[in-house]
């Protein structure tokens, strides 16, 4: 790494290299790029980041990103009110929205249960989910949580909490990737796909 002669530049490089995926070399490149830009452009850049940071908050209801008290998805009156899709994080909401296949409510847990990493159930938005189910008259819960060991435990824990309710619980299907080839699918996935097979629907979408 070249020695940086300016304290200001050095500070900027240090700050940039704290970003995920950015090493010191990339940080220097970005810093020098910004230095070469007109002042108002950098000001605008700065402003948009500040605005995002100061004005975005958690939705009071589903913990998705929100500009106001509630997020745009919760405020959307055309969406189905009786179904909640439970996800780990905000990125999962984005991914599911991207598919255009879901038109209900969301609930962002903020992670999965993992005591090793200090994440017990009380650190996640599980109690809030249970409250919502009672107060909003929710009929179905779709668990869209990663099929990892900790993800599965989280699903089980939530289902245990809801044992006394008559809510319909489902989890997203897991199995062979669409367009994938069976011979290249790993054993565990293929094995579970066989066990959790679904009836064939002759008219396409199952």
């Amino acid at each position, binding site marked *: 790494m070249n020695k940086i002669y300016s304290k200001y530049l050095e500070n900027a490089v240090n700050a940039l290299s704290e970003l995920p995926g950015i090493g010191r070399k990339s940080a220097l490149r970005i810093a020098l790029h910004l230095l070469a830009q007109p002042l108002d452009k950098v000001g605008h850049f700065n402003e948009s980041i500040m605005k995002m940071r100061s004005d975005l908050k958690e939705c009071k209801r589903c913990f998705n990103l929100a500009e106001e008290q509630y997020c745009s998805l919760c405020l959307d009156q055309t969406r189905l009110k009786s179904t909640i899709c439970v996800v780990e994080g905000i990125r999962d909401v984005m991914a599911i929205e991207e598919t255009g296949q879901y038109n209900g409510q969301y609930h962002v847990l903020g992670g999965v*249960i*993992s*005591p*090793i990493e200090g994440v*017990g*159930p009380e650190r996640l938005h599980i109690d809030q989910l249970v409250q919502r189910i009672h107060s909003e008259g929710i009929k179905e819960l779709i668990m869209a949580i990663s099929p990892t060991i900790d993800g599965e*435990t989280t699903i089980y824990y939530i289902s245990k909490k809801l044992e006394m309710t008559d809510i319909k619980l489902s989890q997203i299907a897991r199995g062979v990737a669409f367009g994938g080839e069976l011979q290249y699918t790993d054993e565990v996935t293929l094995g579970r796909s066989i066990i959790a097979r679904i009836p064939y629907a002759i008219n396409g979408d199952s």
Partner: protein
Amino acid sequence: MHLSELYLTNFKSHQSASFRFTPQINVIHGLNGTGKTNVLDAIYCLATAKSYFGVPDLKLITHGSNFYRIEGRLNRDSQEVRLVNKYERGKKKLVEKNGKAYDRLSDHIGTMPVVMITPDDLILVNGLSQDRRRFVDQALAQTDHTYLNHLVDYKRLLKQRNVVLKTSVNPDHMLLDSYDARMAPSALYITSKRKAFIDNFRPQLEVFYHWIAQVDEQIDVKYLPSLDGKDYIEASQESRKRDIFLKRTETGPHKDKIEFYLGPRAFRMFGSQGQKKNLVLAMKLAQHHVLSTQLHLPPLILLDDLFDRLDHQRVKRLIDLILKSNFGQILITDTRLSRIENILGSQPINAIELTKSKSNEEE
């Protein structure tokens, strides 16, 4: 099945080394400190993605370097399979088969079955139950991927459950229930497979023990599962209070016991050094036999420091046994070639000499 070529880069004492092996007997000889055992451990790593001696991946890298690479050519079912195990500091360990990396390391285990025999193995008799459980797990993992996956899941869940018990005075019972429910199917599978393994293993152990010891001592092995026929959830509920009090999980396959007996008495306590050496060797040969039968091909035998543990006569009997039956490929390390040559007589062997300088350069 046999390993025909092996290339090591920055693996322990071998900065760059290559080896050619023949399908039968290979003897790696050289003075102490020339890296003979490291060659066998490299082969073990290639087969199981782990060091036999439990050395962490980082410590397998030659001092002063930042990666290791093990490449082997395996002839299996009359096809050549190219296997690579590589690890770079700070990255994920990769195992490749014919140039394609496995998504899960567990899918690879069993591609090149091995049985390793080292002087350290006395721990199987003298050590704790966990050492004997590992012996059984090593064998099962190579024949049954489902077993390995259950074992990995179970261990992860157990760790999580123990953290819950350790960190809260008044743990969330619903959370403990959740762990129990997830652990139950794995616990059941592990217990039933271990029982089946011991049942297959017991008669073979007896045969090999008598053959090596040449005396009619009555030996036995018992599997004492923690669950002992009970349902996991029930058993776990029963020990819940105790778990909370002791702050750890007291029930489940991680508490299984495997004990060896000499007549009615525990081998661990009453066996002599010589009897224990015989037992360990018989255990390994029985393991080899069980694996051969289940896989329909004989696993590679890696025999480390043969003469360190056995007297001349026992080595001779072992070699005779290997030559008579279809034991497959064998790699032996010893400090002196002549000892093995004497025993083998006119049998063809592939002798590979390691010297201090040679272990650091191309063969």
